[in-house]
């Protein structure tokens, strides 16, 4: 149980962080590109970015807590 739980913790946080990294990169990249092209739309683009990043990042943060639970059970 111990080693399996540790592997599960590593997988859950690793894959969560990988997905969030890719998602965040896409969101931030496109938003910065949009703001550079049209600075007057900064407010709208930032709000959309906030919603997107908040959603993308919720999953790895929860996966970190899950990893913590698995680590505690190991």
């Amino acid at each position, binding site marked *: 149980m111990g080693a399996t739980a540790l592997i599960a913790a590593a997988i859950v946080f690793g894959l969560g962080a990988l997905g969030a990294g890719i998602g965040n990169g896409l969101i931030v990249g496109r938003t910065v590109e949009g703001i550079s092209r049209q600075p007057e739309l900064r407010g709208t683009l*930032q709000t959309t970015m906030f919603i997107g990043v908040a959603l993308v990042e919720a999953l790895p943060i929860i996966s970190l807590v899950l990893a913590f639970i698995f680590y505690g059970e190991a």
Partner: protein
Amino acid sequence: MNDNLSAHLRTVTRLTFFFLSVCFICWAVLPAQQAWWGGLVVGTVASLVNALHLAWKIDRIGARAAAGGNGRASLGFFTRACIGLLAAVIATMTFDFRVEAVAAGLFVAQLATLLLGFWTKRKRGRTQSLDERGENN
């Protein structure tokens, strides 16, 4: 901070505080499940701190992009991950709250953000279609 983002953030904060008050009322009414309600409260507070930190970072990135500045900018993901982990550690080690409830609470501000985003988009789309038909004059 930008007006649009700050208005959105104010509403998210208000919704989160409303959820916190519901949790505290449930904690008082149902003391048998205090480990769950307490965990939910700790997770929700951490989630609100995360949302405020994220808004601050996004505003900085937007200002830098609008000014055409160069250099590296980070979103501070590990700071927020550590805030979530700290909430879980405080809830379990100090107060004996349920860590599952903390994990659920960490999603509250993000869920409020999502629902508010859908609602704002729907409202904007409805106003736009009324403007196009000339019914909003």
